[in-house]
């Protein structure tokens, strides 16, 4: 690991003022310290934000049907919150099905949504080719690599690395808003606009600007008791998704009044399947209808020999999620 300066800014405003360039924020450290050991991330200064203003950014607040969560809330705290579990189970599911208990105690939800890909060629600096690490160097995954875990949606000829997170799929499905403190003051952006598809510059992963600190997530309409996060992986626990679905449903009698579909493990960014939602809205839930919608969700898939299975797996995961939601009370 390369030497770095360690600082503990006392306030968010001071943290933002100090950030930028090779000065990065440090919260739980579960991505940062890992990738610093691998020499993938090389910060010159780490700004420890875990002690900002006595826990001011560690909160879970309901106001009517709206939910606001501080960015320094630990994954475990939100996963175990009884009211969240009851009113919007997909948020809790996406967290407790992720990582390990120890990691969930350390990692904060602000950093969680910014976690870096698990692509082996990104993590292993002995591969010279990685457009995400070294723009313009090529892609070892596309150039004969093992791509079983790689993305099929939102890919480009420069990068097919999968977005690894689970929680982000629930946030994008719930139309969450990201509250940011930046060098020019506070602002809010739609969660759906936070991540950026790779295109020709996979090293630029978000629309955040230099110094931007995520301070909270807000979900204006968060009451979705009939929601879940279904995660399919190589082993039963403590593994990244091969395919997952964050699904939420509101019924008006037999008719779908509102439906939210986000897909994980299959895309380069948190992925909302809006075409599929439109096809299902206003009709009743049937297996045939779900299969047609899933077909549309994966219509733009681009596969390799290794990861072609993800198209079928992704569709089946989506269909099963909503067949199970349709059987739930709600």
């Amino acid at each position, binding site marked *: *690991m*390369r*030497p*770095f*300066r*360690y*600082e*503990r*800014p*006392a306030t968010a405003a*001071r943290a933002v003022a100090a950030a930028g360039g090779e000065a990065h924020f*440090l919260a739980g*450290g*579960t991505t940062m*310290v*890992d990738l*610093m*050991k*691998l*020499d993938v991330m090389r910060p*010159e*200064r*780490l700004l*420890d934000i*875990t*002690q900002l203003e006595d826990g001011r950014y560690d909160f879970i607040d309901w106001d009517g049907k709206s939910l606001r969560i501080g960015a320094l809330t630990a994954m475990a705290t939100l996963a*175990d919150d009884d009211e969240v579990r009851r009113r919007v189970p997909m948020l809790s599911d996406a967290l407790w099905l992720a*990582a*390990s*208990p*120890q*990691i969930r*105690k*350390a990692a904060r939800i602000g950093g969680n949504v910014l976690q870096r890909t698990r692509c082996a060629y990104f993590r292993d600096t002995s591969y010279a080719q990685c457009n995400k690490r070294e723009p313009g160097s090529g892609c070892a995954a596309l150039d004969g690599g093992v791509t079983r875990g790689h993305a099929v949606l939102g890919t480009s000829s420069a990068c097919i690395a999968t977005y690894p997170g689970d929680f982000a799929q629930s946030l994008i499905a719930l139309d969450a808003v990201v509250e940011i403190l930046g060098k020019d003051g506070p602002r809010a952006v739609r969660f759906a606009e936070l991540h950026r598809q790779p295109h020709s510059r996979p090293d630029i992963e978000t629309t955040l600007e230099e110094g931007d600190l995520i301070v909270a997530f807000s979900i204006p309409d968060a009451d979705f008791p009939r929601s879940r996060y279904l995660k399919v992986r190589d082993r*039963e*626990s*403590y593994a990244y998704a091969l395919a997952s679905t964050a699904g939420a449903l509101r019924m008006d009698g037999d008719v779908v009044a509102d439906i939210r579909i986000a897909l994980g493990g299959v895309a380069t960014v948190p992925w909302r399947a809006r075409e599929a939602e439109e096809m299902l809205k206003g009709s009743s839930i049937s297996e045939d209808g779900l299969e047609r919608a899933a077909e549309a969700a994966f219509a733009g898939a681009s596969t390799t020999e290794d990861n072609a299975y993800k198209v079928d797996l992704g569709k089946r995961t989506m269909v099963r999620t909503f067949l199970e939601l349709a059987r739930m009370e709600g």
Partner: protein
Amino acid sequence: MSETPDRMDFVSRRGLMKGGVAGAAILPASARAQTASSSEDADGTVPLQRMNVTLDVNGQARQLTIDTRSTLLDVLRHDLDLTGSKKGCDHGQCGACTVHIDGERRLSCLTLAAQAEGHEIVTIEGLGSENALHPMQQAFVDNDAFQCGYCTPGQIMSAVACIREGHAGSDAEIREYMSGNLCRCAAYPNIVAAVKQAKSGMEG
């Protein structure tokens, strides 16, 4: 608290040697070379940074001078000679380094020692004593919940927290909430049995 930890210009010879040994064990050659030439800041890279910290470990305040890069695991093992916490993968994947920070289970290999300042750290050495084992330690012995024993300190620290969190309600829940601790000898069934035995001991 000052915003920038003091940069230490003077380091005791013993501390420097210990730090050097600890560092050498974990650094790739490229990083070592950089460290060795880091007294100058000419090429824009950051020179070696040391800072003073006071860590609360097993109820004792320990004052140390550390390299900012030090993980809590390396400080525990190399500076404080608390070698019960084990280094398995060093990347947060195996759980052998699990300790308690403010009563919660955390991975000491992914925790910078600097970040642990101001928090209560408990390691396997602080959980029980040879003459008065913690109920979880006794349960691991009673249920033969290990073979080689390398993962055991991490398993025990994690298991104690698992019960405190209320995540030991069934065999399935214990398996799910112990999934961050790998056991290559696959003593898993006996570990589940030990957690169940200790649960009644800890709650009773």
